[in-house]
């Protein structure tokens, strides 16, 4: 451990870190533009120059290029070093436009800050400034290349860190240009990070352009809930709406970056269509009144049909507080539920995964970056949990091998080897990898499986990533079993599941029954259930048999829907109760590794001024209260629905949760990095074979809807700026199957399904498992009809191919 002195302060740092990082650890800030911890040090901008006064290095050197060594004496304030840094700023400001007043970066601009702090004030350069033509980079990022100071952060991030090629650097000398070869929408689903990375205003957030300065905003650390990973974000709010989200550093979860779905998936909270007052049988009422009336009606149903005639549905997008409150209320009132899973398959998968994950097996996403081999089974990170793909790429960059067992044509920004397996065969492949038992798998895969098995055996820190969407509980158990076996063999193996929603894990922690919406529908049909309370869930979007759903809803005496989004089911409710989003209520979310993280409220709530002001500027509606400021968080509402008093404050709620649910005992006192929660041994499911394998016969195809990064996440789907990002309806088929249809890539496929015809563009790939048809979920498609509540088998004669013109 080298000891060195920086600005008269002696510090001891780990071997191999740069002087700039050593200074950071001591709380001494050395100016930087090109240096960014996660992108590494490259020595381009020269602003981090410091004076090495004594020790193994002498004179002015770049602190990002020199390793901290024993005996170094470093001065960051040496006059010579300061003078040089002042000149570096002068050079950078030669061409930088003085457009700070109209630049969105102004106020949080690193160049602005360092120009001030490095004491460059008077422009001496008399020449002209060079100018560039800006590019259209899509609806998310505004490009303003004139402001560029050539720090190379964007191109290094985009190409080296993220692995995409369509944005980079062109030209040399003062003609250097950062952008795309031709204007166009950026291809990477991680593109927004260049906004956070750019030290000045070359890339700024487009949807929030010209809305305010950093200091105008209420800025709060938050947790992203657009997938199960729980990445750390910073929320900026102003005038009762969310302005933008940024990546926030987490040494356990996401590092510094976030995906574009998370960054832009917040607009549901701002939308005009969002429910902001109660509604009872078509009439607007204050939110509190709607709750009282709902409680009254629920009580009536309970009195006439018994408490069991009332059922509650929640979901994995609710906070742990809400799920806990619903669970408690159902229990004490004798109501059914809460049902927290869409279908039997997803309930089984998620609860199995949560049951398998244990303290010693779980790895955090950040730990995946240091894995030396990654095996994925039925997981498509880029579409299911995007930042996981970034973590895997970092491991790959350090030399880790990646292999995938999957039936999809996976497309990831790094090299990997795919074993193309039908969903029914994935468990066998996994078993073959674990115990070299290759008799059950097809001969043509034996060599590949053996070679992957050898690679896994040869490494020290393998990680198995297992999806829960297209896998069954046998595979999910299998993944955990494989990891345990490797650990017994002395490898530091880790286990990582992806889950369908931000709080699926939290739901599985509290849900001891595992009842699903299907079960409830059956009971509505049989007349057992007369009243349904749906909280932050949308059956319309998740239940596959829509005809059956409509009929079931008609049989109900009461449908109460409480949500912070204008879902389809909301419009069919007798009573609508608005709830608060995570940005107004805050909430605990348990990510897929079991990490419970608290996301505090970012603003007090209420209808955005943009909406109440009706476009006028300045808004001149004067009133004593906050419009729609009376909405309660769903957890409070849960108690009120049962005519009971909720805990008086959030702190008391946490105390109550810890006392009521043993599994949440630690939930009240966690740190900024969250706390890991695991199911107690007694509640873990034991492995059991799932029912006999359902092999479809020749001439039958398994139609499998799968996740798409911008296609199906219920919240991000509502963001206007992401509209163009959803895939067009496509159906992927194995190239070998396509020969039977004489079909080629780009043909039109027409499927005759029970609900009518389905038109899709046919795509072919060698990496689709034969007998499988893959459809990426997208808003333009009624994919719910073949959702995986039941295996959807399509006979060959129901598939028609029309040649493209």
């Amino acid at each position, binding site marked *: 451990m080298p000891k060195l002195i920086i600005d008269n302060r002696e510090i001891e740092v780990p071997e191999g870190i740069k002087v700039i990082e050593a200074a950071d650890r001591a709380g001494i800030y050395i100016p930087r533009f090109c240096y960014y911890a996660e992108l590494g040090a490259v020595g381009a901008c020269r602003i981090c120059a410091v004076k090495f006064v004594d020790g193994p290095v002498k004179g002015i050197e770049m602190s990002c*290029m020199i390793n901290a060594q024993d005996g170094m004496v470093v001065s960051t304030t040496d006059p010579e070093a300061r003078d040089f840094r002042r000149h570096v700023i002068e050079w950078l400001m030669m061409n930088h436009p003085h457009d700070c007043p109209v630049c969105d970066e102004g106020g949080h601009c690193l160049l602005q800050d360092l120009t001030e702090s490095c004491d460059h004030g008077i422009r001496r350069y008399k020449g002209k400034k060079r100018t560039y033509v800006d590019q259209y980079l899509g609806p998310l990022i505004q490009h303003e290349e004139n402001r560029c100071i050539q720090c190379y952060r964007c191109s290094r991030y985009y190409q080296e860190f993220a692995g995409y090629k369509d944005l980079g650097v062109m030209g040399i*000398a003062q003609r250097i240009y950062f952008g795309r070869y031709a204007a166009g929408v950026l291809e990477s689903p991680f593109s927004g990070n260049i906004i956070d990375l750019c030290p000045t205003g070359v890339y700024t957030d487009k949807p929030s352009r010209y809305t305010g300065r950093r200091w105008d905003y209420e800025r709060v650390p938050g947790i992203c809930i657009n997938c199960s990973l729980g990445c750390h974000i910073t929320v900026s709010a102003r005038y009762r709406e969310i302005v933008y989200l940024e990546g926030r550093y987490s040494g356990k979860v996401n590092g510094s970056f976030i995906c574009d779905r998370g960054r832009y998936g917040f607009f549901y909270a701002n939308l005009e269509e969002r429910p902001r007052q109660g509604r009872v049988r078509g009439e607007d009422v204050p939110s509190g009144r709607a709750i009282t009336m709902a409680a009254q009606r629920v009580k009536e149903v309970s009195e006439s049909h018994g408490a069991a005639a009332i059922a509650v549905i929640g979901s994995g997008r609710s906070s742990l507080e809400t799920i806990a409150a619903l669970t408690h209320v159902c229990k004490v009132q004798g109501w059914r539920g809460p049902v927290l899973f869409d279908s039997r398959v997803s309930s089984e998968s998620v609860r199995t995964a949560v049951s398998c994950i244990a303290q010693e097996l779980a790895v955090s996403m950040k730990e995946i970056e240091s894995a030396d081999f990654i095996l994925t089974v039925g997981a498509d990170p880029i579409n299911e949990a995007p930042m996981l793909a970034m973590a895997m790429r970092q491991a790959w960059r350090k030399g880790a091998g990646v292999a995938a067992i999957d039936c999809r044509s996976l497309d990831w920004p790094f090299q990997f080897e795919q074993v193309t397996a039908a969903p029914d065969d994935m468990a066998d492949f996994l078993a073959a990898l674990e115990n070299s038992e290759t008799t059950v798998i097809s001969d043509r895969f034996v060599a590949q499986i053996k070679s992957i098995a050898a690679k896994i055996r040869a490494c020290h820190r393998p990680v198995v990533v297992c999806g829960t969407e297209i896998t069954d509980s046998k595979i999910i158990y299998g993944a955990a079993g494989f990891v345990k076996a490797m650990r017994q063999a002395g490898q530091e193996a880790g286990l990582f599941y992806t889950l369908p929603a931000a709080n699926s894990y939290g739901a599985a922690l509290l849900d001891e029954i595992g009842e699903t919406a299907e079960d409830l529908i059956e009971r509505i049909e049989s007349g057992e259930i007369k009243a349904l309370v749906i909280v932050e869930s949308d059956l319309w979007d998740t239940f596959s048999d829509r005809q059956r759903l409509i009929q079931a809803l008609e049989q109900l005496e009461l449908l109460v829907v409480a949500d912070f989004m204008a879902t389809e089911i909301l419009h069919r409710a007798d009573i609508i109760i608005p709830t608060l989003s995570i940005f107004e209520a805050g909430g605990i979310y348990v990510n897929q590794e079991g990490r419970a993280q608290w996301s505090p409220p970012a603003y007090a709530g209420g209808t955005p001024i943009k909406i109440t002001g009706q476009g006028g500027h300045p808004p001149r509606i004067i009133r004593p209260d906050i419009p729609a400021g009376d909405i309660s968080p769903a957890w409070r509402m849960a108690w009120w629905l049962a005519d009971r008093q909720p805990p008086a404050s959030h702190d008391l709620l946490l105390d109550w949760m810890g006392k009521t649910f043993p599994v949440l005992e630690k939930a009240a006192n966690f740190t900024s990095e969250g706390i890991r929660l695991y199911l107690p041994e007694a509640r873990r499911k034991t492995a059991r074979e799932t029912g006999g394998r359902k092999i479809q016969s020749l001439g039958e195809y398994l139609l499998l809807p799968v996740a798409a990064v911008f296609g199906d996440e219920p919240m991000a789907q509502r963001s206007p700026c992401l509209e163009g990002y959803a895939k067009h309806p496509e159906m992927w088929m194995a190239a070998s199957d396509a020969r039977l249809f004489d079909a080629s890539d780009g043909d039109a496929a027409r499927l005759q399904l029970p609900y009518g015809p389905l038109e899709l563009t046919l795509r072919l790939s060698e990496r689709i498992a034969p007998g499988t048809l893959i459809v990426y979920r997208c808003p333009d498609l009624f994919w719910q009809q073949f959702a995986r509540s039941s295996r959807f088998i399509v006979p060959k004669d129901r598939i028609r191919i029309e040649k493209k013109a």
Partner: protein
Amino acid sequence: MYPQVLLKNRKKDRILSLEEYREMGGYKALHDALTDESFHPRQIQELLLDAGLLGRGGAAFPTGIKMKTVPDDAPHPRYLVCNADEMEPGTFKDRVLILTSPHQLIEGMILAAYAIDAEIAIIFIRREYETAARALEQEIGRAREAGYIGKNLFDSEFDCDIIVHRSAGRYICGEGTALLNALEGKRANPRKPPPYPTVKGLWQLPTEVQNVETLCCIPHVLKNGVDWFKTLAVSKTGAGTKVFSVSGKVNRPGCYELPMGVKLSEIIEDYAGGMLPGSRFKACMPGGASTQFLPESMYHARMDFDDLKNAGFRLGTGAVMVFDHKTCLVEATANLMVFFARESCGWCTPCREGLPYILDLLNRIEAGEGEVEFIPMIRQMCSHMNYSYCAFAPGAAAPVESLLTYFEGEVMAHIENRGCPFKIGKVN
């Protein structure tokens, strides 16, 4: 007339054929090195070190030492790269050397490759040198047929192939580490050693980069011995000959092979035919655009790496650009700076932004808009170039610094007269 070594067989309008080269004793050194069982490839390194062969690309790094930095247990394949990306303004010796005798270079490369056990040799050639590139490709083919290139050379264990690669066409590609990035298909930004290319170079494998002229010397050192090579020079510490590219206000500009340490005055008067009629010597650049001006006081200086270094100058590539008393050195320096400002790779700030800034100030001085405070500004910026990423910017600042050191009066005259004295006729 001094002995001719590298340019001995220079023919008018044609290259030396393989047969002619063999008749002159060509490929004998290679044959002997590979067939003599008592001769270890490492001995080539020792010989070159003893001979005092210094890199002729401008940096004058001892060739033997560079070879020794390839570790014995370094991985394979190893690479030898011939840097023929000759873009230093005023320098044209490599082109002449290739077009004189391609086989001299080929033999030198195979020997250098043998010395470090490199199995792949690459000629990274400037794309404007298409004629030379084609000549090399043709002669490499002939050498391969004759068994000088390929597998198991002279029935030894040693394999070596030569590839001709045309450069991406920028000055910075000639910088040793930027060249490696360019070869890998990346942007030609320099790399920051360590690791040095001899440890982790092309594709992170050991790579030795040598200049054309350096490689051409190797067969002669092996064939004629260390002492012979040393006696070729006329300076105390120098060794071998130096091919000077002479240009500017002289009667016979061209390429001249002269002993290391020959006097500048001798080059100009005896070989380049003296100054043009009506011209007096004012200054010259001894080794291309990135070296300091040699003022008149250095007219009799010995053109040797050590001699010039000790006097505060650099021999560089030995490209002697001669300026006469009618040439405005402010304008000449600004002209050089146009080149450097344009050719900066754009990686680091001092070079990318500082050089155009210096150019702007020089242009203003030349145009009569100069201010006295420009001079300390330029001086300071030139000294700041030492804190840039690679050696490009300090090289670009060298002529400017020497302009202010030796010709400050001329610069001041521009400022005081509000214009270029050469243009408004105040100096004859």
